[in-house]
C-alpha cells in the first residue's frame, strides 16, 4: 500500500510541476472541477514499457517517462495536454485504470464512503498545493479514488478526440450499487432506458457524472470502466487484432451501430472506445 501511495504521489506531483510551468499562474475557481467529476485517470500496470507501447499504437497519445528512485512512471499526453498517468507496479497481477473523482472535502467524503460499506486501500496522501488523494474500494471490490479540490484543472475531459469520455460501473447488483453511491457520494440516480434495457445515470446537481448498468460480463467482478472518444472505432479494432489485447466486444451494428469497442489491454485493464458525436 505504501508503494502504491508513493506511486500516486510521484505521478501527480510531476504532473503538477509540468502544469504549473505550462499554464497561467492564476488559480481557477474550485467550482471548475465540479463535485463528482472524474478529473484524472491512472493506469497501474506490471510493465510500463509494454503498456506505453500498446497505448501508443492504439491511441493518439504520447508519454513522458520518469524514473524516480528506481520507480518507473509516465504522464499521458493527448494533443499536448496531460490527461492521465501510468505507474508501474511489477508485482501487480494485472493492469487497471483507476478514475479519481473530484470531491470538496476528502475526509467527509471518505467517511461517508467507508460508513456505507466502502474501504480505503491507499490512505490519504497530500500532493502539496495540488490537493489530496485517497484510493478506495467500493462494496463489490470496484476501485476508484477521491481527489480533493485539485488547485488546477489537470484534466479538462472535454470529450475531444482521444480524450476521456465517460465512466460506467458494471454492477452485479444494481440495487446495492445504486443505494451505495446515492449515500456514499451523495449522487442522484436517474433511471432511463436505452436499447430496451435499463440504464442508470448518476448525477449531481442535475449534471450527469457516470453511468450504471448490469454487468455485461457474467461471472466477472464489478468494475468502473472508462470510455475514450475516438472517431475511427473500426480502425482501432483492426489495430487491436494485431496486438495481444483481448477483444471483449467487437464493433457491431447491434450495439450503438458499430460505435463501441471494448477490450482488455495486454495486461488485463478494461477500456471502452466510443465514437461519440457530441454537439458543441
Amino acid at each position, binding site marked *: 500500500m505504501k508503494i502504491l501511495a508513493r506511486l500516486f504521489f510521484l505521478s501527480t506531483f510531476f504532473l503538477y510541476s509540468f502544469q504549473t510551468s505550462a499554464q497561467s499562474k492564476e488559480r481557477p475557481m474550485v467550482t471548475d472541477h465540479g463535485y463528482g467529476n472524474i478529473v484524472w485517470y491512472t493506469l497501474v500496470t506490471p510493465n510500463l514499457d509494454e503498456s506505453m507501447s500498446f497505448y501508443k499504437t492504439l491511441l493518439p497519445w504520447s508519454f513522458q517517462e520518469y524514473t524516480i528512485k528506481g520507480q518507473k512512471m509516465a504522464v499521458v499526453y493527448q494533443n499536448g495536454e496531460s490527461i492521465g498517468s501510468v505507474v508501474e507496479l511489477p508485482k501487480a497481477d494485472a493492469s487497471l485504470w483507476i478514475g479519481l473523482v473530484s470531491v470538496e472535502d476528502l475526509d467527509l467524503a471518505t467517511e461517508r464512503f467507508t460508513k456505507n460499506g466502502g474501504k480505503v486501500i491507499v490512505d490519504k496522501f497530500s500532493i502539496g498545493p495540488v490537493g489530496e488523494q485517497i484510493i478506495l474500494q467500493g462494496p463489490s471490490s470496484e476501485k476508484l479514488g477521491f481527489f480533493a479540490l485539485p488547485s488546477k484543472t489537470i484534466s479538462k475531459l472535454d470529450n475531444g478526440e482521444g480524450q476521456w469520455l465517460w465512466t460506467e460501473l458494471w454492477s452485479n447488483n444494481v440495487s446495492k450499487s445504486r443505494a451505495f453511491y446515492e449515500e456514499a457520494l451523495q449522487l442522484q440516480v436517474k433511471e432511463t432506458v436505452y436499447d430496451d434495457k435499463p440504464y442508470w445515470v448518476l448525477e449531481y446537481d442535475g449534471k450527469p457524472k457516470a453511468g450504471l448498468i448490469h454487468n455485461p460480463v457474467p461471472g*466477472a467482478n464489478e468494475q468502473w470502466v472508462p470510455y475514450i472518444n475516438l472517431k475511427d472505432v473500426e480502425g482501432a479494432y483492426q489495430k487491436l487484432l494485431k496486438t495481444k489485447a483481448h477483444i471483449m466486444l467487437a464493433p457491431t451494428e447491434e*450495439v450503438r451501430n458499430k460505435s463501441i469497442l471494448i477490450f482488455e489491454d495486454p495486461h488485463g485493464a478494461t477500456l471502452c472506445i466510443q465514437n461519440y458525436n457530441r454537439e458543441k
Partner: protein
Amino acid sequence: MRKAKRGIYSAVVVLLLCSTSGCSGARVGTSAGVDVVWGSNGPRVRPHVSIDVFNGGRW
C-alpha cells in the same frame, strides 16, 4: 458389468477432454459467460461482453 463399462467409458472421455484442454491455448467455454484459456501459466479467464445485456456508452 454394464455400470462398470459405463464408468470406464466416462473415465476415458474425461481423460480425453483433460488432455485436450491441457494443450496450450485451448479454449473451453463456461456457462458463466467467460472463456478460460489454458496457457503455460495455467488457466486464465477471458471475459466477453454479452450484447444481450450491454447497453453502455456515453449518455
